[in-house]
């Protein structure tokens, strides 16, 4: 079919496309090709960092669907990750179940806990809801701590998890994990993108923007809020479960309130209400501390105390949140959108016809 210009669309199917401009398809294709070729030309350490990013992406997309699209603030994301990790511990260590069963089981457990944690959202909004999810966080972490104290060799050592196998294939080592996570994240991203451009996504955004009007149009608030919590907890739980397999160790000390805040930072820095933003934010915030550590190597030796580096790493996340909220409240996704628009219009400066991008 002939196209008159990059913004002219000739069917409803096209108007609902995610990659609307021809070059975007090329760009995504190139990124995927680069992603497939990446392990060939990089060290295991670098791949390990990317794996951490991919794991964070899955969790961040979960929080993005809940907070960025449905508008329900949650500080319970670390607890959801812990649910996934501890479900994995119980099913692998006690019941010796295989990977292919454990991860879906963790997803289902996550969904159930998400349902429970979501129940207060039917009554509370905003800060009150955040506090109620915080309460849930402490309740879940308490249970996990008690469990760990009872079943791990020493209270602080954590619990070891063997490398997972799918049939004859053993997932171990950075490159294998990398490909596995890449495929999984691609499918999850496609699913999320489809959700936000169809009926459930619109219902969530309507609840986020004006819940009274949404209800008057027949959207069942109870159903959609709980669905958002369940989806969010499911993704977080899958991420937590895979993280447990990936790092071969589960310890409750990893699931602090700090971690929940870091996930909130990811979606703020990436840009609320944008799937691309969720991915960008997860990469940015995950890589930030490693980047800072790297920068410190350029400083004189006397400055390179471990505690200083750690302090700067923690502080940088906070500084990033504040800077983004002040200067770029729509996050990295908006920076990308502006850049794209600039080159799309060049040498003209007028605004594009379509102003949305999720």
């Amino acid at each position, binding site marked *: 079919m002939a196209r008159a210009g990059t913004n002219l669309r000739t069917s409803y199917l096209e*108007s609902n496309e995610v990659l609307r401009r021809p070059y975007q398809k090329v760009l995504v294709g190139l990124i995927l090709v680069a992603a497939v070729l990446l392990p060939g030309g990089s060290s295991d350490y670098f791949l390990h960092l990317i794996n951490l990013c991919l794991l964070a992406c899955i969790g961040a997309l979960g929080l993005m669907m809940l907070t960025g699209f449905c508008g329900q603030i949650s500080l319970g994301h670390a607890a959801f990750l812990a649910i996934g990790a501890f479900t994995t511990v119980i099913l692998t260590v006690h019941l010796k179940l295989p990977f292919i069963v454990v991860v879906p089981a963790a997803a289902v457990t996550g969904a159930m806990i998400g349902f429970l944690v979501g129940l207060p959202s039917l009554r509370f909004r905003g800060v009150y809801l955040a506090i109620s999810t915080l309460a849930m966080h402490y309740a879940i972490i308490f249970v996990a701590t008690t469990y760990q104290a009872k079943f791990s060799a020493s209270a602080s050592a954590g619990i070891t998890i063997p490398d997972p196998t799918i049939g004859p294939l053993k997932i171990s080592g950075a490159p294998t994990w990398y490909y596995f996570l890449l495929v999984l994240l691609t499918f999850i991203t496609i699913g999320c993108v489809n959700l936000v451009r169809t009926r459930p996504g619109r219902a969530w955004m309507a609840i*986020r923007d004006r819940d009274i*009007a949404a209800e*008057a*149009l027949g959207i069942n608030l109870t159903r959609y809020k709980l669905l958002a919590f369940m989806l969010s907890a499911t993704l977080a739980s899958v991420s937590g479960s895979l993280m447990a397999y990936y790092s071969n160790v589960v310890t409750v000390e990893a699931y602090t309130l700090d971690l929940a805040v870091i996930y909130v930072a990811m979606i703020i820095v990436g840009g609320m209400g944008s799937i691309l933003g969720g991915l960008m934010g997860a990469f940015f915030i995950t890589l930030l501390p490693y980047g800072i550590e790297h920068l410190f190597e350029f400083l004189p030796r006397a400055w390179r105390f471990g505690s200083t580096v750690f302090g700067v790493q923690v502080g940088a996340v906070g500084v990033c949140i504040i800077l983004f909220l002040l200067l770029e409240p729509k996050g990295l996704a908006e920076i990308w959108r502006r850049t794209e628009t600039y080159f799309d219009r060049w040498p003209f400066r007028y605004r594009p*016809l379509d102003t949305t991008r999720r």
Partner: protein
Amino acid sequence: MGLEIENLKLQFGGIVALNGVSFKADDGELVAIVGPNGAGKTALLNCINGVYRPTAGHIRLDGRDLTTVPVDKIALAGVGRAFQHGEMFPHMTVTENLMVGRHLRMKSGIFASALYFGRARREEMEERKTIERIIDFFELYRYRDTLTGDLPYGVQKMVGVARALALEPKLLLLDEPSTGLMREEKENFARYLLRIRHEMKVAIIWVEHDMQMVTDLADRIVVLNYGEVIADGVPDVVRRIPKVIEAYLGAD
């Protein structure tokens, strides 16, 4: 059939917002509700809409009692509402706002939508086509892909009416739709209103302050004062009733 309101009472503590309101609106009838500030006009709409639960009385739509039905189920029963201040979803485009209006007419669940394949995808395209008719009706072509938060106030209010109509309601509630519109926009709105009345079989409850518009367009006027109906009839009769003149129109 249409809407039937019987002896409706609404009380907040000691304050009586509605005190025994009764009236009817037939299918295809345009009923205007007027009255001074605080007369209970919006409270009445909130009761019909299910936002407030009346203290006593009944609301029936086509014979079905809606008095205790929750808000989202009232939409399902066929009540569409355009809010006083638009109440748009500001971070969604006009098309998306209208598609939310089609929510109840769609079926795709979370799994089908995540796959965006087969029926879910066909349904999306079909409803997109339906939306186009509404965009056409309200002449919103230029705003299709604009975020509603970026639109001028007058256009936002029209999108609000369009969104309520997307529901294919049997009863349309309009809460001061022309307030804050420019003269030209008001004239356009009057035209849309008459077209809705003539082309769709929908009863319209229209809360309005512009008496000239009301007397020109409405089939019947219901006048509220302090939560009570003080007049109910055709415009030419109602505007000559001394009690109405005293309470709302003002004497010379």
